[in-house]
């Protein structure tokens, strides 16, 4: 029974990792850029969710119920977080792309963007931790001795839904086709009459929107926010994406869950200080056997 409980917890953690890893993989798939600011976009998403929900609930004039507030906060958070992602693309990555800068400089820029987001947040909002208002009345279902909250179920289903939706967009829509085309050959896309920037902006919007959603769900599950909350989770999600095969949506999803399972199971049976050591050792072993990740194939498919 205990193991099933751990299993459910791992599914929830895996959902967070997967939601972030999907954004890493999307941007990498299209641009071959590792957007190291992505973990911090997740953090920004959590803060946006905090401000939106607080604003919605604070003013009595709206007279919103908790559920109404929640259903408004989700799209607003995703929208505003995508704006942040879009802004980064516009002011940081696009000028470098125009100049044909080497990938290394773009990656360093991404790292710096992440630090600016973290420390900008710290400077603007101070170091005090914030708590997301309660929007979902907690219900605990007891299924054969396993406690599952409605939030946990929501998180897992959201991750699943996002995965299915992304897979659909990338494989079945024209925009998805254009994204796959860019991942293979950036040069030829304008020759198809399609604006390259449009495809790239769309990719950033999707990636950051999903990260925003993840940040919000994370903040609902662990309602204390701080400016550095995105960095470690972000790194781990990045590693999950690489282990899954960066550039591949299935890989990001699977990698996220894989990492969460290893972490939770190690923490369950060994001292919790061993958690990261074991988790990363397992991932290292996988990389050793399959350097391109589980779904990655060298030089062929991305996305």
């Amino acid at each position, binding site marked *: 029974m205990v193991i099933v409980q751990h299993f459910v917890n791992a599914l929830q953690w895996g959902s967070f990792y997967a939601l972030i890893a999907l954004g890493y993989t999307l941007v990498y798939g299209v641009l071959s850029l590792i957007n190291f600011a992505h973990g911090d976009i997740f953090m920004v998403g959590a803060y946006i969710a905090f401000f939106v929900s607080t604003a919605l609930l604070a003013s009595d004039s709206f007279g919103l119920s908790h559920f109404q507030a929640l259903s408004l906060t989700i799209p607003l958070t995703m929208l505003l977080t995508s704006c942040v992602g879009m802004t980064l693309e516009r002011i940081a990555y696009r000028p470098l792309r125009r100049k044909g800068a080497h990938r290394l400089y773009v990656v360093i820029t991404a790292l710096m963007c992440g630090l600016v987001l973290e420390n900008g947040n710290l400077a603007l909002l101070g170091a005090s931790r914030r708590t997301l208002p309660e929007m979902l009345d907690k219900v605990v279902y007891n299924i054969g001795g396993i406690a599952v909250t409605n939030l946990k179920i929501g998180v897992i289903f959201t991750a699943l839904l996002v995965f299915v939706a992304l897979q659909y967009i990338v494989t079945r829509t024209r925009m998805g086709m254009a994204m796959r*085309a860019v991942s*293979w*050959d950036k040069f030829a896309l304008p*020759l198809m009459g*399609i604006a390259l920037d449009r495809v790239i902006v769309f990719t950033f919007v999707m990636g950051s929107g999903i990260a925003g959603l993840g940040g919000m769900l994370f903040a609902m599950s662990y309602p204390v926010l701080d400016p550095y909350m995105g960095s470690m989770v972000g790194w781990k999600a990045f590693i999950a994406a690489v282990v899954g095969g960066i550039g591949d949506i299935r890989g990001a999803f699977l990698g996220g869950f894989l990492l969460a399972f290893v972490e939770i199971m190690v923490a369950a049976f060994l001292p919790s200080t061993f958690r990261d050591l074991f988790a990363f050792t397992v991932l290292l072993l996988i990389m050793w056997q399959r350097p391109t990740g589980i779904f990655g194939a060298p030089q*062929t498919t991305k996305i």
Partner: protein
Amino acid sequence: MLRVENIFASYGKIEAVHGISFHVDEGEIVTLIGANGAGKSTTLKAIMRLVPPGAPVLTKGDIFFEGRSLLTVEPHNVVAKLLIALVPEGRHIFGNLSVLENLILPTWTRKNDPDVPMDMERIFELFPRLGERRNQRSDTLSGGEQQMLAVGRALMTKCRLLLLDEPSMGLAPQLMYEMFRTLKKLNEGGLTIVVVEQNARLALQVADRGYVLDTGEIVAEGPCAALLDDPEIKKIYLGG
């Protein structure tokens, strides 16, 4: 239809084209011939308004399409709005997409055009091999088939002016002739064509007029018959 006026184009600090002028009339096949590094591809990329890296910057001169300057037009609009298409050197097909997807992608900008399915059928008539392999990943095609796909893909933009950069490169002689026969056929159907070639003899046999480029400048021009007879050109470009 197309008028290139005294263009200078460079990659970074290296100037590849030093003042080229030429024109293309509607319904013509015009060829630009010359050795490697003569500035042929650079000229085509400049016409398409492609951006660096990968394409040059135009430092001087102007390009007019039906009287309108292209300098402020973005590359995707050169294709989508002005209907000029390029088959780039090295094909640049999307290898991770199926043959069919490669042909669908350029029709995105023709959203409400009812002719798309008909045009697709026309491509499959023109290149039956592509029809047979429509659901195959396009990087599994042979070199010749990939070249057909690159041409088919450009035609799916419903272009009025087609630019081709070395369409014969890497093709066996038989396929090379077939490619040029197809171009002739397309031209007879009303398409204006500019073709850049290293295989000068073949290009001059098919085209109406030709320009000879050498190290970024035009050194000779005229009707193809005249160029084929020119003793100087024979010696340098046609192997005696």
